[in-house]
C-alpha cells in the first residue's frame, strides 16, 4: 500500500497518521509527506491522508484556506478519479470545505473544546475503511476539537442515510452533531471524513488499539504490488 499524508502549516497529527499508515503498509513502503505548496502528488498512490490539526490557524473558517491550497486541487482530482482519501478531524473540515464531502463542521453546540475518548458505532461496513468491522460494532476513539458539530440540510442528511454513507455515529454525542454523525463517506464510498482520531489509539503504548482496525481495513483492501 502506498500512502501519502498532506501537511499544512498548523497540521499536528501528520506524523501520527504517517506512523499508522507505515505500520500496515508492509516492506519499505514509507508513507510520503507532501507539503501543501506542492502542485502534484507522488505517482502510484493508493491512499491519501488529510491530518488533524489547526491548518492556517483555523483562520476564516476551519479548513477553508487549506482546502484552497495548491495540493488540494490534485487531491480533488485524485479523489474524482476514484482514489482513496481519509480526512481526520481538521482533515474532515478540509474535505467538506473542498467539496469532496457534503455539509460543514460548525462550532460545538456547547461552545467548548472537547478532548476525550468517545464511543463510536460503526454504521456501515461497506467501505475499505470499515470492512473489517461488523455493523454496529462500538469502538473507542479520542476526539479533540472545537468545531465538530456536523451540520447539513435535511436533503443532504436524507441522502447520507439513504445511501448508507454515515460511517460512524457517536454513542454519546459530544458536540451537537446532527443525527450524532461522527464520520461520512463520499458518494463513491472512497472518501471518508471523520472527527475522531483513530491514529491516536493505534498502539498499546498509547493506551489502546481500537484505531488500528481502520488502518488494517484500508491495508487489507489495498493489496498492491
Amino acid at each position, binding site marked *: 500500500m502506498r500512502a501519502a499524508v498532506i501537511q499544512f502549516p498548523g497540521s499536528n497529527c501528520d506524523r501520527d497518521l504517517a506512523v499508522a499508515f507505515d505500520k500496515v503498509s508492509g516492506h519499505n513502503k514509507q508513507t510520503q509527506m507532501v507539503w501543501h505548496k506542492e502542485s502534484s502528488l507522488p505517482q502510484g498512490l493508493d491512499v491519501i491522508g488529510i491530518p488533524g490539526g489547526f491548518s492556517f490557524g483555523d483562520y*476564516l*473558517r476551519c479548513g*477553508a484556506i487549506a482546502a*484552497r491550497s495548491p495540493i488540494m486541487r490534485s487531491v480533488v482530482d485524485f479523489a474524482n478519479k476514484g482514489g482513496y482519501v481519509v480526512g481526520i478531524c481538521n482533515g474532515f473540515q478540509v474535505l*467538506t*470545505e473542498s467539496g469532496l464531502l*457534503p*455539509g*460543514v463542521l*460548525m*462550532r*460545538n*453546540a*456547547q*461552545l467548548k473544546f472537547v478532548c476525550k475518548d468517545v464511543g463510536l458505532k460503526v454504521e456501515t461496513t461497506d467501505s475499505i475503511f470499515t470492512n473489517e468491522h461488523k455493523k454496529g460494532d462500538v469502538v473507542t476513539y479520542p476526539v479533540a476539537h472545537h468545531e465538530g458539530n456536523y*451540520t*447539513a*440540510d435535511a436533503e443532504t442528511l436524507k441522502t447520507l442515510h439513504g445511501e448508507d454513507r454515515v460511517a460512524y455515529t457517536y454513542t454519546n454525542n459530544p458536540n*451537537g452533531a446532527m443525527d450524532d454523525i461522527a464520520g461520512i463517506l463520499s458518494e463513491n464510498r472512497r472518501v471518508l471524513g471523520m472527527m475522531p482520531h483513530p491514529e491516536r489509539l493505534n498502539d498499546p503504548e498509547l493506551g489502546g488499539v481500537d484505531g488500528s482496525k481502520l488502518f488494517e481495513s484500508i491495508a487489507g483492501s489495498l493489496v498492491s504490488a
Partner: protein
Amino acid sequence: MKARVHVTLKNGVLDPQGAAVRHSLRALGFDGVEKVRQGKIIEMELTETDAAKAEEQVKAMCEKLLANTVIEDYAVEIL
C-alpha cells in the same frame, strides 16, 4: 476602490456564539435583547476602478472562499 463583505449565518442555522453573547448581555442587565446573530466583516482595497466590475469580482471571491454558502450568506458593499 474599497469593498466591504458581510458574512452572516443563514436564517435557521443555529448560532451558539450569538446565543452565548445574548446570555452575557442579559447578565449585564441588557434585558431587551431577544436575539443575537454573530457574523464577520471583511474589508478590502481593490485596484479595480469600475464599481460594477469590482462587485462582480468580490462576489466571485465570496463564492470561492470568503463564505461557505452551505451555512452562510454574504452581502457586498462597494465603497
